[in-house]
């Protein structure tokens, strides 16, 4: 099953502002492993055509894995405001 189809089963309430911001100055200078690209269980990180890291925060499961695995501290990561973000109906 495609990861997008899986995320499509979940409820996401979208805020206007992202709750994760990537400081690309750090990614491009300090980071060695770019862990965010493979540790995210929702596969939300990718490189854009200028090789900058982008995060598709809209589908975030709020697990915190990217935050914990980014040693270079390139992420400004908070939980979404109340009323927003993923809302699990089972889990």
């Amino acid at each position, binding site marked *: *099953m495609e*990861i997008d189809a*899986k*995320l499509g*089963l*979940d409820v996401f*309430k979208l805020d206007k502002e992202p709750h994760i911001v990537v400081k690309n100055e750090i990614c491009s200078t300090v980071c060695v*492993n770019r*862990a965010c*690209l*493979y*540790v*995210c*269980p*929702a*596969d939300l990180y990718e490189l854009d055509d200028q090789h900058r890291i982008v995060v598709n925060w809209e589908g975030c*499961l*709020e*697990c*915190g*894995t990217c*935050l*914990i*695995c980014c040693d270079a501290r390139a992420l400004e990561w*908070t*939980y*979404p*405001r*109340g*009323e927003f*973000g*993923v*809302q*699990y*109906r*089972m*889990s």
Partner: protein
Amino acid sequence: MEKVDCIVVGGGLAGLSAAYGLASAGLEVMVLERGDYAGAKNVTGGRLYVSPIRELYPELWAEAPFERAVAREWITMMGDGAHTTFEVAADRFAGETPQSYTVLRARLDQWLAEKAGEKGAMVVPKMKVDELLRREGRVIGIRAGDDEIGADVTVIAEGVLGLLASGAGLRAEPAERDHAVGFKEVIELPPATIEDRWHLNPGEGAAHLFMGAVTKGMLGGGFLYTNKESISLGLVVGMAALKQDPDQGKCFSLLDEFKEMPQIRPLVAGGTVAEYSAHAIAEGGIAQVPRLYGDGYVLAGDTAGLSLNALVTVRGMDFAIASGYHAAQAVLAAKKAGDCSAAGLAGYEQSLRQSFVLKDLETARHIPRIIENPRLFTHYPQAVSRLLESVFTIGPQPSRRLVKTLWRGVRKDFLNVATLKDAWQMRKL
């Protein structure tokens, strides 16, 4: 500043258990939960051990919205080309007072929130706490948006990441060595199919764990819990191992590969995936438990690192509920004595030390470092399966005597320098 007796940050099991205890004793309690409802942000594997906590709130459990009482334990060790499954059933697992139940958090947490509400707690969903307010080192309340609310004691039960607590310097930031990521699918299946596949009487449940090839040698394993009308199927992978090894591919695809394995495919066949979720898990054991209380605050549940991964048993929810209970008792004592400083709240740690929470974590002190050993996830599941495979294999050559077959397998896979070293390590289990 508006003030209440007690603010609880986080309407998970730890926070709600604390709120229930506090409100039952008549304190003015406010629970702030960022999800649309309690449980909306929460993920678990699926099994709550009730026996350790039954006596804490004896009136509660009879009506709890549990899924199934776990009557059967299954463990599958997966090697390449062979796997071995154990099925364990014991009368004491289920029976009249079952020791554990499968659960889904959206249901369980909402129910506990209702119970706390009935006792008089004010549970406010859709409300994220942005900051712990501190004055001269003492936690004096919280800020949410532009509003500041004071409290004599703040129960910090914000879950595993502990962003507010670490932001205020009350505990360390979460480190990858001490954490795993768990991700799972809830897959709907008809009850009768579930009961057939795991040999269950109607209404009974199973817990099924998987070790070995599922995590490609990384610390972790697979889990499957049977709910009423669905199963929770997922993986847990240590973050340090996951990060170390970019060649293992993307984390999320491990679950798809897991579902495609020939041992798993028939178990999930015909099911409809209904939800996908992920959450971090604290696995550092007692070594990462921070100071549990201070002036004006206590830490409870995952925020306090109270969880345990012992491979075949994963526990956190029972610790969360128990720590919430003991937090409530400590706060009540502190309020009564009129001293909500660290000294007044010290009873919290004492009672946790006397309870199963810190005792079990202490007993398991060495587990987190022992299970960092990748052979547990590669060599052993493979070796067990290979050994049993050899016992059951009839080839073209004349067969050896059973004892010889076993001995050869054991000598080859279990008696060498590496495994003897492991055995020496594992004596600490």
